[in-house]
């Protein structure tokens, strides 16, 4: 039990609020659709005439308590007069609650009837039929601001948001100056703001608007993220409406929904950090409206409106459509320490050992370069392109080639030690554990090869090519295949469990004792329990992915074909940040100190701050980067399809 220290009356105040929480004309969200499917019977059907007057045309919205319909007013038979009919179904069993709900519905109606403002919808009628109450309002042809924000492909224009902010200050000013008592709207948020087809705005849902009586406290619990701190203490004042307006503008400018963030955390998300095109002046105004202490905010909606219009005049923003330039990022002036040109594309990943860099190329050679200056040491020719990442153990280099062979070469001399033949091209990279080399092949087998003799120990058959690199942890081998099957097998090739993704798994696995992580062509980043294959979580990427994730701190970071690099929290599968490149991200990110390095098919190597995803620098090559960079001793090594290997200062 809770809230016992707060008078019973105030709790009823909360009930009213819930009871009347009905949105007018929101776009149908997924949840709403589910609700529609769950209870279609309770909705009025098109063609029904309500109170012998309102011909229901269609459902235009759903609220917590009922539907909102578009209807035609049949008292005007010769014109097509449309109205919005807001329905509230009273399903609460408690008679006291029922009575309260009806009373408050009527209160909203009576309140609306006394208001005259271009941004407040006109009320035409209200009535109660059995356990349903109806409010008949001006029909607004448009959608709510929440939908406008989420449907926009990018940030809304500052001038547009500024125009709306001025209009909202104006309507708040009207309400706050209402006689005899000021009206506190109390629920300013994007879903309560309708934007009509000509861009004008209407404030809807006066369910909890409250004539202000000093000395009486109301209670708010479970607010929407737009509410000010003092509202939790039961204070609903003009300053509270100003805060909520600030929160609404913040949401519109940043596209960050405050309901998904901790309360009062706007200061942690400065507008310009998210949307650099917003002017500092507007940021300052919004910050002032969002001041924690009400006395530091604007004294009135009129004062805030004056600040906004002064800004509009001063900067001429209302007539200027352009935006301020983004903060420049260091993109030039990065010179590689050295570069080395192969005879064909480099699509794979280098490795480093004892001062030598080893990398395969589509000119069929495995190269050994001096890591310090890029000087050629030797090359080892195969009969196919090499995308496989070489692995060095005990002075030997293990690498697969599209000539179907696993080659083992002496690191010092570049001479062959042994070879192992599979029946398909090898794109997988060797993984060495427990005296064995594990490697996948397009021949559909995962091969286990004795690392001393080069003899097959066993091979594990799957239904299609294996291009991922097996991951070994706790005497188990984890890998995915091109059919979308994912396997966990032990060192005796006995299958422990299997999982199936909807499409191919080309990505390799990374893991901890808690989970194994990989991506799939089905556009999902998966987290599976390594012991039994149960899915802990799935994170939807924008498109398919073959990028292998990396783990750092509490983040799983991976790329996808939609060009984004995604950072997802390992525990909660929540997105921490995402970074957009100009083309597919097929290679994997790597972490070095507090930076993340990742290539993109757009030709750039990106260096980001891994905790925030902020760009530090980028380095452009002449071709796509599909491999994974290697960072060692403050130097980044990366190959490009422009045939070059680059070494850059990290």
């Amino acid at each position: 039990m809770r809230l016992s220290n707060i008078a019973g009356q105030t709790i009823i105040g909360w009930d009213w609020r819930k009871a009347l929480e009905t949105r007018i004309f929101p776009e149908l969200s997924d949840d709403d659709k589910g609700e529609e499917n769950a209870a279609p019977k309770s909705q009025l059907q098109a063609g029904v005439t309500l109170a012998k007057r309102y011909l229901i045309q269609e459902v235009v919205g759903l609220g917590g308590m009922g539907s909102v319909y578009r209807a035609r007013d049949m008292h005007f038979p010769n014109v097509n007069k449309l109205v919005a009919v807001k329905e509230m179904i009273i399903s609460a069993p408690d008679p006291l609650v029922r009575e309260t709900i009806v009373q408050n519905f009527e209160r909203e109606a009576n309140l609306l009837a006394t208001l005259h403002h271009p941004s407040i919808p006109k009320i035409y009628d209200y009535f109660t039929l059995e356990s349903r109450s109806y409010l008949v309002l001006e029909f607004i042809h448009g959608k709510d601001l929440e939908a406008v924000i989420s449907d926009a492909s990018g940030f809304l224009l500052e001038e547009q948001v500024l125009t709306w902010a001025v209009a909202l200050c104006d309507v708040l000013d009207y309400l706050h100056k209402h006689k005899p008592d000021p009206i506190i709207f109390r629920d300013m948020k994007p879903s309560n703001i309708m934007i009509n087809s000509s861009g004008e705005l209407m404030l809807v849902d006066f369910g909890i608007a409250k004539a202000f009586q000093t000395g009486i406290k109301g209670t708010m619990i479970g607010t929407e993220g737009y509410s000010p701190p003092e509202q939790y203490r039961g204070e609903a004042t003009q300053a509270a409406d100003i805060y909520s307006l600030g929160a609404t503008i913040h949401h519109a400018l940043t596209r960050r929904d405050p309901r998904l963030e901790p309360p009062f955390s706007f200061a942690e998300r400065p507008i310009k950090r998210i949307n650099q095109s917003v002017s500092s002046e507007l940021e300052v105004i919004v910050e002032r409206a969002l001041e924690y202490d009400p006395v530091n905010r604007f004294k009135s909606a009129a004062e805030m409106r004056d600040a906004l219009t002064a800004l509009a005049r001063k900067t001429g923003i209302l007539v200027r459509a352009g935006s301020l330039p983004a903060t420049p990022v260091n993109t030039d002036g990065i010179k590689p320490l050295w570069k080395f040109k192969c005879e064909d594309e480099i699509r794979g990943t280098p490795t480093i050992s004892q001062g030598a860099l080893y990398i395969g190329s589509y000119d069929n050679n495995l190269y050994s370069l001096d890591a310090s200056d890029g000087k050629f040491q030797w090359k080892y020719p195969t009969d196919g392109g090499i995308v496989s990442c070489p692995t060095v153990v005990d002075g030997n280099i293990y690498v697969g080639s599209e000539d179907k062979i696993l080659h083992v070469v002496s690191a010092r001399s570049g001479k062959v030690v042994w070879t192992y033949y599979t029946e398909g091209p090898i794109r997988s990279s060797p993984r060495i554990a427990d005296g064995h080399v594990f490697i996948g092949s397009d021949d559909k087998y995962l091969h286990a090869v004795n690392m001393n003799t080069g003899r097959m120990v066993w091979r594990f058959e799957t239904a299609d090519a294996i291009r991922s690199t097996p991951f070994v942890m706790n005497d188990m081998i984890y890998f995915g295949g091109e059919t979308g099957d994912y396997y966990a097998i032990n060192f005796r090739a006995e299958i422990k469990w299997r999982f199936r993704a909807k499409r191919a798994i080309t990505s390799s696995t990374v893991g901890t004792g808690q989970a194994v992580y990989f991506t799939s062509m089905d556009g999902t980043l998966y987290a599976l329990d390594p012991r039994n294959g149960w899915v802990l979580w799935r994170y939807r990427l924008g498109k398919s992915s073959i990028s292998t994730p990396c783990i750092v701190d509490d983040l799983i970071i991976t790329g996808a074909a939609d060009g984004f690099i995604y950072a997802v929290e390992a525990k909660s599968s929540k997105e921490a940040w995402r970074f957009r490149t100009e083309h597919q991200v097929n290679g994997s990110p790597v972490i070095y100190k507090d930076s993340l390095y990742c290539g993109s098919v757009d030709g750039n190597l990106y260096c980001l701050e891994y905790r925030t995803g902020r760009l530090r620098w980028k380095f452009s090559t002449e071709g796509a980067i599909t491999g994974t960079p290697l960072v060692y001793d403050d130097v980044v090594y990366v190959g490009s399809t422009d045939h070059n290997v680059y070494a850059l200062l990290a």
Partner: protein
Amino acid sequence: MAKFFRWLSGLFGNRPKPEKKMDTANTAPLTEDQLKAIVNNQNVQFELQQLVSAAGQSVGKQRELNEDSVLAITTTMAGNSGNLPFGLYIVADGMGGHQFGEVASNAAIRTVAGLVLKKFHPYLFQVKTDSIEESFQEIMSDAVNEAQRIIQREAPGSGTTLTAALVLGQQITIAHVGDSRANFIYPDGRIETVTRDHSLVQRLQELGHITPEEAENYPHRNVLYKALGQGDLLEPEIFSIAFPQPGTLMISSDGLWGVVAEQDIIHAVNEAPNLQRACQNLVSAANAAGGPDNISVVLAQLIG
């Protein structure tokens, strides 16, 4: 009964400790990274383990009504790789006027447990067994969202906290809204809060507006900014975490954790001969401290 307790205490209380052998081998020191990797991967086991649990509840000394609801279900389930321990543990602390608190907390438990069990144990509901497409986190999220909808329909205006832990094997997936808590209590006397209270007082502390000392006496300690049944967009906290081994998972309402000192909670759990007794001790301790609110607690351990 006495025999039963002796058996249980044999099981949990006085397990013979294996003799320690001195390691005399010379070893090279491991690097920080190597150590971290070993620690990270240490608890990977494939053997079947025993999950045990107990629950306790009391109306307290000062309330007439119990608005808390508790659920503890422990079983096993046939999985991808043999039988796995399965547990579902929920504490919900209802709030609101008109005796609706218990309606909300009850609806929350009923809905969440119903949907989760239907997924994992469809035969209990006489429905066809289908393979599970969704992840643990998706199943928990769907269940919480459905509970939100049911509460808004059945008891508009009321609300409830919800801390629900789905245990499968060594994974705990927690769905959390409000200020009931999930804690890990370790045999070495540490206690860790794995959930974050969605309360005004917690948030003000996070923002540095009040100190922990001020929080103790803050007048609006009971005010939540997130509760099941309230708000039109609920974002429950959902995360997966490894079961503490060795250790105890505790889920409790603020009638317990807000009333009994941490040291006393640790003591009650670690010194009790079994989990049932530990629950009784915790409830008694909360009542002895005045029992200002309803008291609910669930304890669970993974053994073996």
